[in-house]
């Protein structure tokens, strides 16, 4: 398979699956203002996913559209990191994930907007502003939950701890990113990511998660058990009517 196709798919799948989870908060958020805020974040993520998947289809050259890629690939063909597919959990857990993921995306897109591939650079240039806002939103909540009440502190800590073992996968380098010139080697983003995330966690009065074990497999299409359910829901209408337009 074409390296650029696979690389674009990785980024697109991350954004798509993140959007699917974020959208689950709409009509279930802690307050009305947050329903609207998370709606904006989900729409940003979905917008990134659509542009990236469209481009992946174009690069592949087999005539697959964004919808073909989103709705008619099986579980093992999705290349998103497991962090994106984990269930939302409580609000603190979702916010912990947003902090980790958006901070990563922000660093990634900052690099990617200078890459030689015009389309990827264009997507990154637009998305970098969006994810900067996501980082800010997550940061505001981590501070409030971490340094709010006893209960919120406990929940925030638990959220940060639960999501932490899924973060290393974001920064794993492999032969593909080394070969592909336009790709950002994610391992180069790790130290700055850790510095930024740690700063927020410290300020929130939470403790930095200590777990050393780290899950992986998403980039090779090995996912958590949760992922099959997520895909079943995402794909079932489209798959029940193959060839139909919507």
């Amino acid at each position, binding site marked *: 398979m074409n390296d650029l196709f696979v690389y674009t798919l990785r980024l697109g799948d991350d954004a798509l699956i993140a959007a699917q989870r974020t959208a689950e908060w709409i009509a279930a958020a802690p307050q009305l203002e947050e*329903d609207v805020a998370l709606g904006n974040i989900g729409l940003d993520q979905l917008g990134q996913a659509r542009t990236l998947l469209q481009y992946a289809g174009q690069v592949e050259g087999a005539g697959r559209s964004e919808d073909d890629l989103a709705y008619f690939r099986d579980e093992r063909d999705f290349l998103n990191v497991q962090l994106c597919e984990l269930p939302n959990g409580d609000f603190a857990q979702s916010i912990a994930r947003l902090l980790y993921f958006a901070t990563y995306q922000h660093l990634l897109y900052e690099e990617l907007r200078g890459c030689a591939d015009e389309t990827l650079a264009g997507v990154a240039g637009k998305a970098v502003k969006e994810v900067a806002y996501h980082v800010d939103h997550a940061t505001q909540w981590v501070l409030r939950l971490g340094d709010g009440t006893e209960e919120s502190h406990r929940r925030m800590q638990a959220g940060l701890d639960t999501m932490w073992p899924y973060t290393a996968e974001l920064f794993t380098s492999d032969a593909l990113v080394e070969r592909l010139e336009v790709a950002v080697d994610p391992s180069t983003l790790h130290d700055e990511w850790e510095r930024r995330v740690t700063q927020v966690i410290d300020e929130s009065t939470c403790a930095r998660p200590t777990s050393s074990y780290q899950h992986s497999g998403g980039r090779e299409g090995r996912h958590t058990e949760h992922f099959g359910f997520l895909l079943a829901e995402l794909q079932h209408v489209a798959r029940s009517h193959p060839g139909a337009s919507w």
Partner: protein
Amino acid sequence: MLAGMDSFQATIEADGRIEPRDAMPEGYRKTLIRQIAQHAHSEIIGMQPEGNWISRAPSLRRKAILMAKVQDEAGHGLYLYAAAETLGVDRADLLDLLHSGKQKYSSIFNYPTLTWADIGAIGWLVDGAAIVNQVPLCRCSYGPYARAMVRVCKEESFHQRQGFEILHTLCNGTEAQKAMAQDALNRWWWPSLMMFGPPDASSTHSEQSMAWGIKRHSNDELRQRFVDMTVPQADVLGIRVPDEGLTCDEETGHYSFTEPDFTELYEVVKGNGPCNQQRLAHRVKAHEDGAWVREAAAAYAEKQAAKAQGSAA
């Protein structure tokens, strides 16, 4: 010089706008609070029947549109609660009244969304009916409500179109898709007609609301407007309105139609609709699950304020 109630009456008679701090009859204030709150509740409960299809929307374009639409509804609930608050109530108290079942929301949202075509039908029929109801409210005598409605109507103009577009695509699709569209119209037609409320003859609040400039047209008038507007659109889609008695008066251009079975409406209002309990339970759960988050944010704000004061001293 006109003071208090005389000034209120003069403003109403001149078709002017009443503003929050003006003197107003207690009945006017109470009617508005009840109506605006019910309207706000409808927006946020209305997020559910559509929201539950965001995860299953059959294309990414549709998913984005639906997310934006449901998000708008949260925004509209928010604008409306804010309008109600100008009358001296608190949003938290209004939400409690919703959660305890003491205040109602539009019965239409107690019907289930069973297929993707229902998302089209809601946009086309339910938002269509809502627009017919809401456009006159932009001229409501109470300023903050009228202004909120101007914003709501402006934003909702895409809601109805996207619904029609969904159905139009289905009706030009496979046999199964077309059948899905017809089925959705069959199920949503009568509940949509009931969105305009009971017939004028048995409507309890209408007369006073008209006199106060809160309501501008009668229930039956608006229902007629909706039918006249919608039936030709169904013809364009190529699906059939499920009313055997539907005929068009060539002279007036108005349709005559079978009156919906209002006993069903009264049952749903009483809490016996297919989804009453489910909708309210979902709403209450979101609220209760979010309590610790809201408490945390308040506690944090307090700590920060204390810190700021400490460093200023």
